[in-house]
Each structure stands twice: as structure tokens, then as C-alpha cells.
């Protein structure tokens, strides 16, 4: 009686000889190769940190390589970074109030049969 109960436990301990696929079942091999690492738990944090570090390096390089005095906005170190960050932020954040103001239901332009426009 005890043998059948022990069998699953033994099976679980035994090392699997089957190769576990990296991606999901049915996933394209190219996707596994190129994109599966993006599903890691820490991917977003690591990517953000790397991007910030790369941005800092770019600003540092600009400071190091420009021998000229700051005579205009264009050659102020980090100016393009500030514009990129602020411009993108303003554009995206404006989506909240503008969306509330200007978004309508999908059938907004449709009208009922017999009405002017006859859009349905």
C-alpha cells in the first residue's frame, strides 16, 4: 500500500531528462532569442537604470568634448536631454486632461436610422 504513495515523490526527485523550452509553447524561436529576456522580473528596473546611466555618460561626453564656451542653448551641456525628457513628459501628461475633454464613445459619429447624416 505504501509503494504507490512513494512513487510520485521519487519521480519528483529524479532529474528531468526532457529539455524545458525557454519561451512559451508555440512561441517563435526568434522571439525567444531576441525578446524573452525582457520578461525577467527586474527587466524594467535594470533597463531604466541602464538608460539613465547611458544618458549621464552622454552628458559627460558632451562636457568633456566641447571646448567651446556656452554661447547658446544648443551647446549647453545636457540641454537636449532636458528638452527630450520635458518634451516627452509634457506630451504624455497632457493626454490625461485632453483625453477627458475630447474622448467620446466609439459610436459618437453614428446616428440612428432616419436622422440626418445617416451614418448607420
Amino acid at each position, binding site marked *: 500500500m505504501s509503494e504507490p504513495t512513494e512513487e510520485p515523490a521519487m519521480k519528483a526527485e529524479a532529474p528531468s531528462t526532457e529539455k524545458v523550452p525557454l519561451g512559451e509553447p508555440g512561441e517563435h524561436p526568434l522571439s525567444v532569442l531576441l525578446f524573452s529576456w525582457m520578461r525577467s522580473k527586474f527587466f524594467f528596473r535594470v533597463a531604466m537604470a541602464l538608460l539613465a546611466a547611458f544618458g549621464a555618460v552622454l552628458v559627460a561626453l558632451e562636457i568633456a568634448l566641447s571646448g567651446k564656451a556656452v554661447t547658446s542653448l544648443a551647446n549647453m551641456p545636457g540641454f*537636449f536631454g532636458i528638452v*527630450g525628457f520635458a518634451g516627452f513628459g509634457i506630451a504624455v501628461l497632457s493626454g490625461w486632461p485632453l483625453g477627458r475633454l475630447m474622448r*467620446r464613445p466609439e459610436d459618437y459619429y453614428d446616428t440612428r436610422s432616419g436622422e440626418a447624416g445617416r451614418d448607420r
Partner: protein
Amino acid sequence: MTVDRLVDFAVTMNPGFFLIIAALLVAVAKDAFTRAVALIGGPIVALLVMLYPPVSGAEVSREVFMGLGLSLYRPDSLSLIFGLGFVIASVLGGIYSLHRRDRLQDAAGLVYAGAALGVVFAGDLITLVMFVELATVASALLVFATRTGPAYRAGMRFLTIQIIAGLMLMAGAAIYGVQAGTYLITGLGELWNGLVIGIIDPSTFGGMLILIGVGIKAGFPLMHNWLTDAYPNTTETGAVVLSPYTTTMAVYLLARFFAGYDPLIWIGAAMTVYPVFFAVMENDLKKVLAYSTNNQIGLMVCAIGLGSTLSINGAAAHAVSHIVFKTLLFMTLGAVQLRLGTTKASELGGLHRTMPWTALACLAGSASMAALPFLAGYTSKTMITTAAESGPGLLAIWMLLLFASAGGLMMSGIKVPFMTFFAQDSGKRPIEAPFNMLLAMGVASGLCLIIGLYPGWFYALLPFRDQAQEFLVQDLFSMSHVLQQLQLLVFAGLAFMVLWWFRLYPKEQPGVILDVEWLWRKAGPMAGRAMTGPLRRAGRIVSGLISAATGGIQTASRQVFAADGVVSRKVPLSATAIWAVCILGLVLLISLFR
């Protein structure tokens, strides 16, 4: 000998005619091979004719029609670079459409491309307007080809707006030609740095009509809605064929006619900025790409307004690179539409798992559009921003263009690839796009890379070749330019990640975003109903009175003429005799006093 004569004849033909001939062939083609040969071979023949030397600005084909001198074919360096862009778009569209046999779309697409080529190589206003009108009809057919109710209505709106624009252009050209005494482009203005550009005076009535007509086709602010209305209503191949021509043709016309016209600087700058805000809210990614087209065309319009050799080169170069990367982006969304039947961001996400090649192509197009160094967008956009930066008193314009660059990254740089192929997993697992689609995407991605990595050959085709080469050597890959552009993109990308992390990025929601089209799709019918309401009420009252009166007459008639009515009643013979005597007496009296 016969072949030589045939070649001699062919090279005097406007290259657009070869595509129109190919369209006829496609329309009657019975097998897939003939169709493929016509779809891809037509543009290639046109390209060979275009590249046949010399491109000197001389009129190759001169005709006289009803006493008017016409020039059907007049190539110069400006028309050549735009023509190259149209041929590339046509070949890509041909390959991309191979899986879908639809005579209407195939033929309309080739006629459309041929008409666009015809416009850029036309040497007079009449030929030019005729090709523009042909392009209008062919492009509308591409919207109708979806064959659904909404597409039909969108097609009608598209056609109406395009016909209005075409009529303005036609009227303007007629007035301007009469005033100038010639319709030939070479006769309308002086050479500027060896090129016939900026030849029409917009302060004249005819010139202003032309500007408005071209402006509608370019999608000037408040005239842009035909783009965002028509593109989402096309088939998966329709948008790919529809997107490259009309707006780019308008850019060519602006460069040819209005280069250096100052108001275009501000119009262009406005065009780069406002689509950014609409694109943030928009859920339909095809509409996002339409807004992004508006944004990119704005850059070119601004460059044309600046009117320097650098900026005109930038506008022409950006027209071609925009054709390549925007066609690529539309192709990737077309593949998604084919497999899932939708391009709405709220219904997509995580598609990279089963469509990795399409995802890669989308990333290539997005990076190119964001002007990542060493890709096509960078080689052309840098010229425009440098021209704006170096122009006196243009700080505000330059800042607007930089903002638009950051916003542009949000539009198709991040929103389209991220929301479609990554972001939240929609759970959908469509199969990869058909081979011909992948091939077209691969060729377009390759072109983005080739133009970006080896821009020398591309710059050699620009209108002002020497200045382009000088820019290539001194500025394009200078450390400062590369660092500045990378900074812009990296920090914009960082902003995206921060906003996403803190859940400040607005969620994609289904719905329509109000735009100028509200005026004619909602306000117009409402105003019409309000204005005609009293008339309709009065009409109802009058029709009630009339029906009451006619009803009374009918009743009375029935009573008089019915079987037992007055007229049918039996009358005694004596009464008839008396009546006859009375009538005869009356006649006698009348004749007596006559």
C-alpha cells in the same frame, strides 16, 4: 534599330505613364505571375527611365494642345529625388500586396503612384493639375476598396475634400497662368541656385488659391483631418499604398512653388506640434501614424519655408526617408490588421511572441522615424533642425521642432511598437505575416539602414548636391550632432520609462477623439437640422392643408360622379329638351350682341 528607337521614344515619356500602363496590365492580368511582373516591373521601368541621363532641367517632351505650350516631361534634381521616393514606395507596395489579389486596389495603387510621378515630372501647370486630379480619383478608390459602410462614407468625405483641393489648385493654376502669360513652369519664375523653385507669388489671387489647394493636400492645420479619417478605413495594403503619395506630392509642390515663403515656417512648426497631443490620446494606431505623418510633413513644410539650400535639401531628403520608414510602419500595422482584424492599441499587446519579424521591422521603422543616428530619419531630419538652428531669429521655431522630435518619439517611436508588440499581453497569438509582407518589410528596413549608414549616394541625389556633400562631410556625423540627438532620444525614452513605472502614462482606451472633422460630421448636420427645422414644420402644415383640400375635392367628386351621384341620376327627357333650348337661346343671344 527598332529597339533603339523604342528606347529613344520611351525616355521622352513622363515616367508616370509607365505605371499607368502597368495598372492597365494589372487590371487585365489573369495569372499571378503577370500581375507580379506588372506590380513590381512597372515602377522599375519608370525608375530606369528617370535615371536615364541627363537630368538637366530641360523640357524633354514638349507638346502644343489647343494653342497652349505643354511640357509633359521636365526632369530636374528636385523632381528626381521625389520621383525616387515614389518609385521606392510603389515597389514596396507592390511586393507587400502580392498575397492579396484585388484588381481594384492593384490598379488604383499603380495609377495613384503613376499620377504622383506625373506630377513631379510635369513641366507645366495644366499637365500637373491633370495628374493631381488623376491621383485624387485613384486614391479615393483605395479607400472605397475596403468595401464596408464606414469605408464608403470615409471615402466620400475623402473624395469631397480632395476634389475641393483639386478645384482650388485648378482654378489657381488657370488664373495664375493667364496672368503670367504661360503655363510652363520654366516661364513662371527665375532660377534660384540653378533650380526653378519658389516661382509662384502667393500674394496674388491665383497664387493664394494654389497655396490653399496644396495646403489641404499637405494637411495644413485645420485641413488635416482627411488623413486621420481615411487611413484607418483602408485595407491592410490600402494604407501602405495610400500613405506615401498625396502629402509628399504636396510637399513637392510647396517646394517647387513656394520655397522661401515665410508663413510656411510657422505653419510647418504648428503641424509638427499639435498632432503630438492628438496621438497621445488616440487608440487606433493607424490614426496615430496618420497624426505622425502630419507631424513629419510639418517638418518638411517648415524647411521649405526656411528656404535655404540646406533646408530644401533637408525637406527633399526627409520626404524620401519619411516615405521609407512610414511605409514600413504602415506595413507592420497592416500585417497585424491582416492577422487580427484590428489596429486598436487597447486590443493589442504582446504580439512579439508570434510575430517577431514584424516586431523587428516595426522597431527599425520607429527608430528611423525617431532619427536614431545611423538610420534614414537622422540623415534627413538633422539637415532641417540644423537649418532652423542656424537661421537668425528662429529660436522659437527650433525649440518647437525639438519638442516635436521628442513628441514624435512618443507617437510612432514608442506608442506603435510598444503597444502593439510589447506592453501588456493581450493573450492573442496570431501567426507571422505572409512571406511577401515580410520581404517588403525587410527591404524597407534595409533601406532605412543603407540610407543611414551610407548616406553619400543619397545626398548625391539631392537638389543642391554640393551643399549636401559639404553637410555630409562637416556636420552629419559630427560628435556634437550625434551626442545631442542621442541625448534627446535617451532622455525621452527615460521619461517614458519613469511615466510607465509610476503609472502616469495614460491607459489606452477605446473611443474617438474629437478633431476638426467634428465640424462636418456633427456640427454641420446639427446646424442643418436646426436651420431647416422651421421650414420642415411649415412644410408639414402646408402639406396638411393641401391634403385636406384635395381630400375634400375627392370626396365631393365621388359624391358628384358616383353611381348614385348627381351626374348619374336619371333625368326626364323633357328636362333635357328644356336645357337644350336654354343653351341654344344663350348661344343666339351671344351671337346677337357680338
